[in-house]
């Protein structure tokens, strides 16, 4: 949808919202890949259920860290999804032949990849915060997750680059984790930022990672204290 939306806009404008057509197409195609990499997470569909039906007990008895176990499964799923996504996007690329424009700097490319990995970890931790509500409300494993996904869809930059927003809106969003999960990693890759600005973004990403990790640990410990293996 976004591809055709922007194609329509660029049929009348050379530059729109500070983007050339090739930059915008690079953004739209990058969203397809990056969002697959960040979002694919079977843990979100399973952890809530495992807590509420008591299956979590099976894992607690084993010498594995439950959250790390799901992180590895998520990453396996991401790699699988990426393989399909690259194929699908390749077909779209052959059909539409868009002109794409990415950064030519190897340093920025590397930093962009690091930003993507951080984005994926932040997404994992924040979604775990949402599903851990099942410790306290076992009959509702999806409510907060749904709310998070609604915010994520618009505020992460999945639908549109966030600098379409008024500058105060983007400034405000920088204090939330959302733009660090899709928008900033892509902007780095398409060469919208220099090295210094990119380093600042990575620092913020790292800060969000630490904050989310802290809260996930806190919630996990608090949740385990309430967990009674109900349903087993």
């Amino acid at each position: 949808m976004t591809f055709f939306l922007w194609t329509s806009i660029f049929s009348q404008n050379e530059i729109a919202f500070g983007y050339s057509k090739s930059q915008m197409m690079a953004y739209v195609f990058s969203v397809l890949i990056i969002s697959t990499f960040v979002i694919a997470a079977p843990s979100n569909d399973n952890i809530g259920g495992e807590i509420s039906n008591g299956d979590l007990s099976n894992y607690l008895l084993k010498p594995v860290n439950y959250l790390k176990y799901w992180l590895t499964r998520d990453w396996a799923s991401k790699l699988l999804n990426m393989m399909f996504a690259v194929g699908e996007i390749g077909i779209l690329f052959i059909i539409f032949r868009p002109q794409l424009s990415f950064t030519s700097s190897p340093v920025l490319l590397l930093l962009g990849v690091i930003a993507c990995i951080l984005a994926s970890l932040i997404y994992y931790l924040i979604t775990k915060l949402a599903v851990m509500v099942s410790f306290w409300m076992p009959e509702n494993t999806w409510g907060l997750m749904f709310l998070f996904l609604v915010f994520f869809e618009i505020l992460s930059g999945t639908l549109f680059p966030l600098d379409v927003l008024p500058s105060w809106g983007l400034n405000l969003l920088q204090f939330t984790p959302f733009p660090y999960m899709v928008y900033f990693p892509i902007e780095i890759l398409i060469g919208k930022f220099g090295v210094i600005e990119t380093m600042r973004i990575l620092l913020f990403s790292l800060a969000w990672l630490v904050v989310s990790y802290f809260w996930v640990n806190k919630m996990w410990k608090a949740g385990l204290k309430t967990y009674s293996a109900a349903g087993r």
Partner: protein
Amino acid sequence: MNLPMVMIFFVSKLLRYGLFLVFLFLLMNGVKNLGGYTREQIIIFYLIFNIIDTLGQLLFREVYYFRPLVISGNFDMVLTKPFNPLIRVLLGGPDLMDTGVFVILIGMLVYTLSNFVRLDSFLIFYFVLMIINSLLITAAFHISVLAIGILTLSVDHLIMIYRDLSSLMRIPVDIFTNPLRTLLTFIIPIGIMFTFPAKVLFGLLSWQLILISFLFGVVSLFLSLKFWNYSLRQYQSASS
């Protein structure tokens, strides 16, 4: 489902619509028009898309629970009762949570139309007809999903494909280039479902196209019913 969770889903849905509307506003402030449509027209397209989409979810929610019914063998119980099984599995569990969202969307549409579109009773009549036609096609989609569900036990993925495809219509079908536009209008008729009712309001649809879209609605419903009857004959009650 308890009240806090109902409220979370309710608020989340409103937020989703609201945030996308904000995006459309910002987008349309930056460009003169989109595919030849003004800002107000794009907003009306989006509101009508959501009304039809919400109505579909409100009425046909039970389809989402059809797979467990079949694989558990409980579908046999539905078949043995003296009540049309299709109505039971298609309309048996309306999602009343969507009613509030639906009412709010209708209110927003009425407000927008009364301020930005000059309507007459003919346009309103055609609009209501096109909405009914959209519901016929939506019903046909869902009946086909149920029929495939009996044959293959796959329901969830088909529903996800339907939802992904229909979400393309948050913007008018005219913005897509050919051959995709034709495909989305006449082959997978989501263009007729979601875009044609708004086009009728703007006086952009000829009577021939209105007639063709009605034919599409009626024929697709007829074919989906045939398909349902065929799949029922193939049902082997293997899970019981």
